[in-house]
């Protein structure tokens, strides 16, 4: 993917750029809002990573200007604030997602990946598959190796979310946001315990683990 990172703090900017490059992306890094706007309008990117506080042109104005010109490149907004107002302000300005500093790289990487593949034909598939696991969305039935697995509604939703994003890391906060519609940071390992329950049903009786833990980031399902 081709990504643009607009971040004035050299340490953070380089860290993001290097991390994303290591994942195989092409990354342009600029350090002020004006350059960022010029880069974003003159090139085509898959995802923009924009810091809120930037010299020359701040992140909010940059995004508004960009959206005003019809540029709809998905944008991840970085901010030190993290208040709900701040979040709403960022989303209103045209950001697609939002990340509060300090963040772990795994969280940023997972969210960038989620943004890049956002427009997908979610509704066409009625059967989701990974390896020998099958989820029939119409019959609301899950089978693995031909055996039917009984899931609670929220376990079903959690598995569906992972299956629809097969191979891509989903962080704990991403799962809380999408599966439970909760945007807060729990102190307890709530997501871990839900995953562990799901695993006990779909993985433990079988020889191969489909739900994988990605250290420092989250979970993904893969065959």
């Amino acid at each position, binding site marked *: 993917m081709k990504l643009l990172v607009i971040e004035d703090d050299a340490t953070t900017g380089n860290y993001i750029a290097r991390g994303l490059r290591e994942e195989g992306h092409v990354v342009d890094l600029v350090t002020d809002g004006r350059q960022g706007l010029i880069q974003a309008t003159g090139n085509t990117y898959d995802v923009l990573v924009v810091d809120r506080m930037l010299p020359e042109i701040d992140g909010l104005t940059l995004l508004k200007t960009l959206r005003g010109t019809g540029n709809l490149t998905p944008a991840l907004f970085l901010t030190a604030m993290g208040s709900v*107002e701040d979040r709403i302000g960022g989303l209103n300005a045209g950001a697609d997602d939002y990340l509060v500093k300090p963040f772990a790289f795994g969280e940023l990487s997972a969210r960038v990946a989620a943004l890049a593949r956002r427009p997908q034909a979610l509704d066409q598939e009625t059967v989701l598959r990974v390896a020998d696991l099958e989820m029939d969305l119409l019959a609301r039935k899950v089978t693995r190796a031909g055996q039917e697995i009984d899931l609670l509604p929220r376990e079903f939703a959690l598995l569906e979310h992972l299956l629809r994003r097969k191979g891509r890391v989903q962080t704990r906060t991403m799962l809380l946001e999408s599966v439970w519609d909760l945007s807060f940071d729990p102190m307890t390992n709530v997501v871990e315990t839900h995953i562990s329950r799901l695993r006990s049903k779909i993985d433990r009786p079988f020889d191969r683990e489909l739900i994988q833990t990605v250290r420092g980031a989250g979970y993904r399902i893969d065959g």
Partner: protein
Amino acid sequence: MSGRMARLWRSMPLRLALLLVMLFSTVSLLSLAASYAVTQASFEQAIRADLAQDMAGFRAAPSARAVAFLVEAESRATDPNRSILSYVTPGGVVYGNGAIARDDEGYHIITLRDAPGDYAGDYLTLTDTLHGGLLTVARSRAEIEALRAGFVNILWISLLPTILIALSGGLVIARRSKRDVEVIGRTLDSLTAGDLSARARIDPRWSDDLRSIGGKLNLMAGAQQHSVEALRQVSSDIAHDLKTPIQRVAVHLDDLERVVPPEGETRELVERAQAEVNGIATVFQSLLQLAQVDSGSPRQRFAPVDLNTLCATMAEVYEPAAQAAGKTLTLHLPDEVLSVEGDRALLGQALANLIENGLRHTPEGAQVEVTLELQPEGSGPDRATAPQLVVADDGPGIPEAERDKVLRRLYRLDSSRNTPGNGLGLALVDSIVKLHGAELRLTDNSPGLRAEIRF
């Protein structure tokens, strides 16, 4: 209605109007009484002068026979109700239309003709000896009595409309000033509730003093809004300025993590440092969130929140974690759907903090119960009901003396120093509850802690 009247009664303009009515009535009464006394005195004087003149007329008669003749003639043409004449000759014969009888109680005028008995009313009398006989002339005071009735009528006619006009004027002014003062009151209410953009709409018809108060209120609100915004700006600047270095430390630690061997002391140190940085970031985030909740600004986003769904979601999110820790989390929901005006994310955060508190500070095997119910508030037969959210556990609880302190920021019980947490959880719950105009009560669940949120 009676309440409204009572409020109106306490209003200043109405009281002033009543005071004026009382003053005016007293002055009117006094001046009327004085002029009545003066007029009455001069009336009496005039009557006495008439009597003296009558007496003088009779004195002109040459003999007792002549006096008797005159009295008899004149009394025939006189109404005894107005005037009475009587002459008692030296021989004891009585002439005239009345006689003066004297007994223990004083003089009485008694009738000689027509009807027997006393004449009604008071008379002014003059008695003198004339040619050896006793002549008495008397005139009725009826005119003076009529004068008094006239004065009383004047009093009513002049006073009643004045009282009515003053009272209704006072009422109208009281109503109007109450309405004007309410405009200022409502503005103050909004400002107190956190809407710092609220301003009093000053009506040009207001009195000068009210306009001046309204203007000053608006100036004050503007200054407050400005300083709160400045404070928010400063705190966001601080947050940015400190969070960026924290982010850098996290970056450096990540870099370090890549180069240290996967096992051993160095790695452990790096991981401990990473955990500390995360802890600092969490405290920072919580403090920022507290400041933001306390500013009252989330009220602008308030919308109806379905508490049943929220409780169910939270209980479901935490249930596996509770089970993994060997504890039981149970949920009790009412049949009807209870909702409040609020911020779903913040209410969820408050509930999460209470549940986490219950799970964290209790031993294995503990019960944590989340209950949503309709609780009566106030008293009386038509008392209202309000939703109440309760999170109760059967753990060690919080000693009564400490219950207020745990709501303070960064306060931790000695007994919980070794459990995770930063001492901001309950403070944030308290702030969120206050933001929603609700009340947080920590009580004894005997054993355990019972946290009640009363909306």
